[in-house]
């Protein structure tokens, strides 16, 4: 908590998408979505220079993407059986990528007792929020 750096330990996704035709493919879709969700929650940000308007981090060095070690343990559970399958095929492309931002931000608020109302959750933002609360734990 003294560095403001957020790291992922574990994340669980429970997803309903109606009738699942291929369980492995459906689960893989959710794993991918979680990784994208972690990446935009913690790292991804386009930085533009306010004067010239050029993008300052149009490279893989400062436009950060999560690597394998940044992702933590992921668990995916697909809802199947009665009540789900008879509804037929429902889309699975975007839904699981939306909730990680809120889930991770909530986890940070729960861990340090202060809301950081911006994504990505970079150390400067987390430390600023902690300081406004009255000091770094």
């Amino acid at each position: 908590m003294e560095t403001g750096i957020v790291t992922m330990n574990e994340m669980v996704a429970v997803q309903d998408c109606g009738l699942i035709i291929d369980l492995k493919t459906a689960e893989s879709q959710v794993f991918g979505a979680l990784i994208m969700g972690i990446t935009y929650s913690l790292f991804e940000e386009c930085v533009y220079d306010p004067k010239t308007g050029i993008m300052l981090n149009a490279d893989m060095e400062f436009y950060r993407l999560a690597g394998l070690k940044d992702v933590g343990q992921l668990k995916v559970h697909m809802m199947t059986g009665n009540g789900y399958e008879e509804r037929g095929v429902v889309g699975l492309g975007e839904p699981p990528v939306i909730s990680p931002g809120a889930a991770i931000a909530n986890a940070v608020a729960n861990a340090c007792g202060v809301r950081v109302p911006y994504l990505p959750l970079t150390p400067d933002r987390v430390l600023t929020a902690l300081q406004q609360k009255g000091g770094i734990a």
Partner: protein
Amino acid sequence: MKSFEYAAPKSLDEATGLLGDKWGDTEVLAGGTDLITCMKQQIVAPKRVVSLKNVADLKGIKAEGKSIRIGATTTLGDLIANSSIQEHFPALITAAKSLHSPQVLTLGTVGGEVLQRPRCWYYRNGLGLYNDSQVRGGDNRYHAIFGNDGKALFVHPSSLAPIFVALGATMIIAGAKGKKRNVAAAKFFQTPKSDADRESALKPNEILAEIEVPTSGLKNAAYEIRHRQVIDWPYVTAAVAFAAKNGAVSDARVVLGHVAPIPWLSQAASKALNGAAISETTAARAGDAATQGAKPLSKNEYKLQLVRVAVKRAALAAGAA
């Protein structure tokens, strides 16, 4: 990339003879992990590139008397694998390992790592290295919090340089016609005054040949604060070295990385460590002292807290080493 003449001399004398007396006309190629990128992006456009790959005596690590000499073209991977370095300088091992990328460790060299050009995103986007008004009024989250009174606001990008300064290393420089001169690491890294200058004491026709690190038994450790756990640039690094007699610390040096245009020797933090045993309290006190005199820019005040933590953790790690 603009076309250029390529030379791969077999001796150091030949190599220095091929260099020009103005920065930018000629560039020295070691691992190429930075230079080639700079050339592709046309940040530098040399007329001649002098490769050091055939200069055999620049490579390798030798223990000699009370010091270890590291050849400038020793790869970072070989540095990590060397048993004398592992025994005497855990700080160097930690820092080199933190570079992570197998490509960089295999190709990148120790000399190239300390002489790489700044990563300032204004510089890398072709807006120049001394564009201080742009940086002050722009996005300076990764820029300097120390030594930033002048036009140079970038941070020194090297992970190893602060450790060489903390360990009291000597940089051995080869000049024209076989001349050699020695410069202390603390004086080797310099804040350049203009675009016509570079970030070290090297002259355009000189080559960093070796780095001599004394094995005087200093306890040492390095700590870096980074966002990603995979390859990433650190926000702040700290190198700590000190002598320990019966538990009491003396001759402490605390050197910060990524906070100033040069590796930043913090006198206040070094003083704070001297005289007592390393404990949570003394390490934290040194961390607080390390922020003295900092002048954050509009977007990098958070680095102060990271300096406190990096120094504290490096001091504790050195104490436990």
